[in-house]
């Protein structure tokens, strides 16, 4: 495995300089972060973890960037390829990279991008109002087919739990992308880590765009 995966160890402090003096684990993480010196991987050597999972979707109503109510379960049961990630509007590091991935996917797929429904789910629902979400999508030049959903804390928690992605606090979230092939058999591809553009297109195509 590459260093990129191994650095994803939970740490509590929000700043690198702030790592505890006494905590060996934190120290180790610091060392790893600073000394990431893994040789460049070639395309065949994936830097993310991939697994096949089965999830049951909760029957909740969320709000999209236009302020419209949407039935989450039916969005997830679309006959398109559905891609889900968890982000928030003022996120500093991981969400912008995930969103750049969405944007790149839409661009790379070109006319085919209409066959994919990209869904970003807010993990900071108090702040992510429709207005904030709309501005966020605009900033990322999102094309139609990319929705940002918010909702009550209770419903968002239910969605996170359904994907085995629950984090009690938004600051401790991690990079996760979930793809649901259109065959409707409840199978999800769970991607932990960040994909390159080529890898994302490849995963989308393998999942079946139709």
């Amino acid at each position, binding site marked *: 495995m590459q260093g990129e995966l191994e650095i994803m160890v939970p740490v509590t402090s929000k700043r690198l300089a702030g790592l505890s003096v006494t905590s060996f684990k934190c120290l180790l993480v610091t060392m790893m972060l600073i000394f990431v010196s893994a040789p460049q991987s070639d395309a065949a050597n994936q*830097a993310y973890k991939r697994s096949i999972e089965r999830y049951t979707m909760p029957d909740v109503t969320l709000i999209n960037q236009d302020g419209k109510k949407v039935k989450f379960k039916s969005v997830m049961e679309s006959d398109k390829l559905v891609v889900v990630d968890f982000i*928030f509007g003022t*996120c500093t590091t*991981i969400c912008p990279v995930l969103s750049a991935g969405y944007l790149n996917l839409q661009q790379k797929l070109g006319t085919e991008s209409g066959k994919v429904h990209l869904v970003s789910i807010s993990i900071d629902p*108090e*702040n992510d109002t429709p207005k904030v979400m709309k501005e966020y999508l605009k900033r990322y030049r999102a094309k139609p087919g990319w929705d940002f959903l*918010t909702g009550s804390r209770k419903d968002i928690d239910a969605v996170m739990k359904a994907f085995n992605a629950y984090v009690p606090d*938004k600051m401790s979230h991690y*990079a996760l992308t979930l793809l649901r092939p259109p065959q409707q058999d409840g199978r999800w591809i769970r991607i932990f880590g960040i994909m390159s553009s080529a890898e994302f297109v490849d995963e989308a195509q393998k999942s079946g765009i139709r």
Partner: protein
Amino acid sequence: MKRCFFGMLLMTIGVSALAADVSVLDRAESMVLGERIYRDGLLPDGKPLKGYVRGDVEIDSTMFSCANCHSRGGLGSIEGQVASPPVNGASLYNPRYLYKDQIKNTISKSRGVSRSAKQLRPAYTDESLATALVAGVNPDGREFIPIMPRYMLEERDMKILVNYLKQLSAEFSPGVTSEIMRFATIITDDVSPEDRAALTGILDALVTINQQTREQRKHPQFSKMFRMLDTAYFRYITIDRWELKGPPETWRSQLEDYYRKGPVFAVLGGISGKSWQPMHDFCEQNRIPCLFPVTDLPVISDSSWYTMYASKGYYQEGETAARFISRVETTEPKRILQIVTPTPEGEALASGFESAWKESGQGQVETLRLGPDQKIPESEIRELLRKSGPRTVLVWGGPESLPVLEMVAGQAPDSDCFLSSRYLGKGLKSIPENLRDRVYITYPFRMPEDEKRFEGYAELLQLGNHVHNNEKRIGSRTFSMVHVFLEGLKEMRLDFYRDTLLDVIGMMPDQYLPDFERYSFGPGQRYASKGCYVVQLGKGTNPEIIKKSDWVVF
């Protein structure tokens, strides 16, 4: 392979670019342009700075800039389990050490001694920094993690960005020495002596506790490690009282005078019954953090940086009412009549309502503003109600506006009314019992039954010295400020930069504090608690408060 080649190509461009001649820019101009690249991702020609992450994911820095990950002050962040190291001048242009060595070095330096510690990386130079930005390699030749963008920067732009980083958080902000940290609190002369004491009691307790911790190190059981940390960290906290007198137009110059006489690192809370605008503007322009003043009339802005508020106050109540009404499904278009008492409170409620109502894309709002005498124009209101029949009536006024409820009930009995509990104050209980079914109230605090577990927090901080009546929540709100400030101070560590204090507070996990539900943070988020309940009243003279909405209404 492709990525390697790309990196090498970029490295070549970067190095050759820096070797070329560059035009000399005015220093201030260069800083402005550098700040724009760093914060907004815009190059001097107005085009976005571009780069690549994970090898081939193209990014445009107007989506996320350097400041996004490395923070505005440049001291870095850890988020989403990814660490973005410090990129401020003081960090980049000095060798990087392990944290424990950084502490020991600081202590040695203060004693005029130098100690040798193993470097994690050597200091950057302009050239090695340029290489890092384009090729993602540090001065040791180690490669950055793949989500650090490799930027496409040309010669002149590189020079501007490098110059900016060199100056970014290079010297500590004013108000801090190796001995003391100087703060102020702002109190305006409309505040009663009791309310003033409720605020200063908490601040005095903070100062006392700070002094007491200095004594701890004399204790024989105070461990060597803590002594070491204490030597590096401890500073006496002083809190000046900036008392503002006379008309609000003169407050700004009074503030400037205070600041000239004694520059402070930050403003710790404060209190005013009037709009916080003059204090907000002063802090914004002098780049002084102002933490959670006790005000319900904050400045509503999505671009201001320096003042953090507990909530949007009255404005947030107005917004909540709009969202609550817009979520009710009806077949007919909604007709809204807004009756506004022309006070800062009434106007803030109306303005919050109008903004959120417009956002919801619903119909027009008819607004009736009372005259300066605040007399209720009964015939005009009856006429308006008679003309358009049942509707929703917003009564943005204090107890003196309660007679409007009777008029509405008499003229258009199927109408609902909305009021602000904060504005009504004790008048809340005077809402006639027979009208309560039709009256909805914005309630900006945690439900009384849930608030019980927070009682005693503020008293704890005051260590029993003063027990104030906390009906106005001044002590408890100031306590919350102190709590967030101390958490921020802890995370700020030895990086005494004002922007860093705000950066680290922006990265705090959610906090559960008295008065308001869930304080949540995020870079640039300036109103910590985002919600407000909509409630109705039960029967009787001491009515039950019945929750009709979630804390956050979408």
